């Protein structure tokens, strides 16, 4: 059963009797981690309650308009930024979490990264076995050449001409109409995401899903959480509709790399080694564009179907930490990143149909931190380290070269003072080293903020995902990963949800 705020408006006493809110497992957050953990626990016979702060959106609610969808799909209407304002941090909400609006590309965490975590119970073999199962369930398949859009064709052409390593990416789609609106949610219901695959499983196994319901505080004593307080909130007015006091044998935090920390901090969970919210990785990136003589229409067709891995290695000795992937953006996304104002900006935007874009994304070594800003908002402290800036400069430089190799007439790198290159001879890697805030960046993969580890002085949970200092609290989302993954994380987050959901005591 899925409940929305409308049910509670009609009957605020819907869950008035305390027995109705007493579950085996209560999962907070219905994204990749939470939905999978809830479905797994429910399939094992647990009575599961899944709470989601965002709305239960139907495909017909997804209008493919940026101004409509940002407030519905993203925290702070998509305008969340790091404290220094240098990086826009996109974090999703809604039943299905960030999988509602993500681009669908799927990669496993490399074995060497998992091995580096040195977790006795979560070996790379075990993790990959779970990921393989998840990939089957989500219909993960390589995007075929015939389904590449022009942007990705050009990217592939340039990469191959330079002899760089590159390949087609795998995505989780079925019945994709190739509309190109993935980042605004799929009106065609073609995403094989948490909403389509795992939420129905929760419901089929008699789980209860409460959307528009925000978990506010864990109440705990000794080593146990005895209650979770939550509120049903009207999605438009944000007014409280009713309070809920939830009891469960086990609680699972799956609010994502930022919100899970806030709930822990709001609840003053025991944190003797001050680990809550530390070690934040973001995989920050940016976009550059090449201008071609022909129409590219980067927003059209399947986005991000090709990658260049020439400058990404998981062998630390190589110090290659930048991943190149095809870019795609709708008008306001591009306009917000391009420098200039008025007529000058309008002239750049006129080139939009002829732009092809590549995004360098960092496998970041920088560690940031999440703190509460007021009671419910996040302060995200994150200052890109010197070595990460060098990696970014390399990524920008190589992405420019690829665009030229593909036939671009000019290439724009959106520093605050636009850098325009008319030929590859003008490029110098050192010119692309970004000083503080010189280039606008975006991050969509917050992680590692409640990380797993065997040592409680440097981690928050054990290698089962159980909170070190509480016996009935578990974590199942992107915050668990001990390091940056260096790859898009959704497959690993679904996998960690499956892992934790399979371990919860019934």
């Amino acid at each position, binding site marked *: 059963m899925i409940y929305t705020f409308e049910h509670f408006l009609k009957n605020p006493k819907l869950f008035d009797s305390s027995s109705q809110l007493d579950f085996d497992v209560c999962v907070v957050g219905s994204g990749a981690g939470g939905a999978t953990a809830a479905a797994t626990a429910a399939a094992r016979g647990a009575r599961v309650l899944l709470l989601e702060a965002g709305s239960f959106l139907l495909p017909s609610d997804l209008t493919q308009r940026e101004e409509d969808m940002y407030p519905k799909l993203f925290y702070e209407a998509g305008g969340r930024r790091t404290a220094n304002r240098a990086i826009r941090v996109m974090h999703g909400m809604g039943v299905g979490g960030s999988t509602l609006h993500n681009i669908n590309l799927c990669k496993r965490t490399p074995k060497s990264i998992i091995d580096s975590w040195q977790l006795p119970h979560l070996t790379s073999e075990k993790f990959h076995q779970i990921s393989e199962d998840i990939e089957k369930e989500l219909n993960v398949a390589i995007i075929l050449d015939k389904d590449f859009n022009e942007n990705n064709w050009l990217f592939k052409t340039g990469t191959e001409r330079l002899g760089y390593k590159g390949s087609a990416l795998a995505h989780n789609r079925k019945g994709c109409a190739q509309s190109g609106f993935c980042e605004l949610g799929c009106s065609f219901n073609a995403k094989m995401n948490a909403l389509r695959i795992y939420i129905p499983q929760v419901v089929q196994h008699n789980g209860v899903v409460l959307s528009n319901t925000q978990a506010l505080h864990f109440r705990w004593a000794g080593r146990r959480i005895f209650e979770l307080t939550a509120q049903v909130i009207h999605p438009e007015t944000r007014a409280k509709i009713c309070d809920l006091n939830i009891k469960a044998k086990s609680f699972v935090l799956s609010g994502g790399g930022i919100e899970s920390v806030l709930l822990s901090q709001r609840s003053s969970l025991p944190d003797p080694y001050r680990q809550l919210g530390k070690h934040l990785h973001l995989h920050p990136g940016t976009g550059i564009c090449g201008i071609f003589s022909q129409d590219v229409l980067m927003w059209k067709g399947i986005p991000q179907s090709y990658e260049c891995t020439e400058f990404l290695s998981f062998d630390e000795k190589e110090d290659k930490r930048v991943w190149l992937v095809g870019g795609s953006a709708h008008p306001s996304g591009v*306009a917000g990143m391009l420098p200039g104002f008025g007529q000058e900006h309008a002239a750049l935007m006129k080139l939009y149909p002829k732009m092809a874009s590549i995004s360098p994304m960092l496998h970041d070594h920088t560690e940031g931190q999440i703190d509460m800003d007021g009671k419910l908002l996040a302060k995200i402290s994150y200052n890109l380290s010197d070595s990460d800036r060098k990696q970014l400069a390399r990524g920008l430089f190589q992405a420019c070269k690829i665009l030229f190799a593909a036939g671009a007439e000019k290439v724009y790198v959106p520093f605050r003072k636009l850098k325009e290159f008319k030929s590859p001879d003008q490029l110098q890697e050192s010119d692309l080293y970004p000083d503080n805030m010189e280039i606008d960046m975006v991050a969509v993969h917050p992680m590692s903020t409640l990380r797993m580890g065997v040592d409680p002085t440097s981690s928050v949970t054990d290698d089962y995902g159980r909170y070190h200092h509480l016996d009935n609290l578990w974590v199942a989302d992107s915050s668990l990963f001990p390091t940056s993954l260096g790859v898009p994380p959704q497959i690993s987050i679904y996998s960690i949800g499956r892992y934790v959901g399979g371990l919860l005591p019934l």
Partner: protein
Amino acid sequence: MDVPSGFKLNRRSFFILSSLGVIAGGSACGIKLYGQLLEVNEQLVSSRKLSQYEKENLPALYSAMTGETDPQQIKEAVEFFAIFLSKLPLSRRKELNLGLKVLDILPLFFMVSFLPFRKIDLKQQVVFLQKLSQGPAVLYPLFGGLKELMYLAYYRVPQNYQKIEYYGPVAKPNEPIEEHQRFYKALMAELS
């Protein structure tokens, strides 16, 4: 998908009914609602009424950033801002207002003009923004969010996005994709 039986109200009627309920409930209800709003604190959406600074500066900024001078377009953009900004958490809205205040007085501070930003002419505003955006890094935070907001407003207008050959939405909601229909059938039946 299991949906509760007897649930017949659709979303629109709920909005209407709940708004009517608030009005009819009078001040007692208003006070109660205010109390509830306070509890949700800073995640709250803020008011649909624009503050003085927003009213004075957003239209000027919109023109300067997008080059739009048609009064009707500007008026509609301001209406859009009022709705969009009401969806931001209250404290973020306060930050925006602070940003607008700073921007407004910066021309005086930089001795570009004896007038605040909103009062200088469009050409000067553009030149000023240009200079500022390439000036000291400490001022850069002013731009990130504001630019996104301005272009979100500008490219929501079909005649503006058509200028750059963007074709807008292509969605055909409720297309007869089999799984889609199965998955949502029960719920749609109740909600529509």
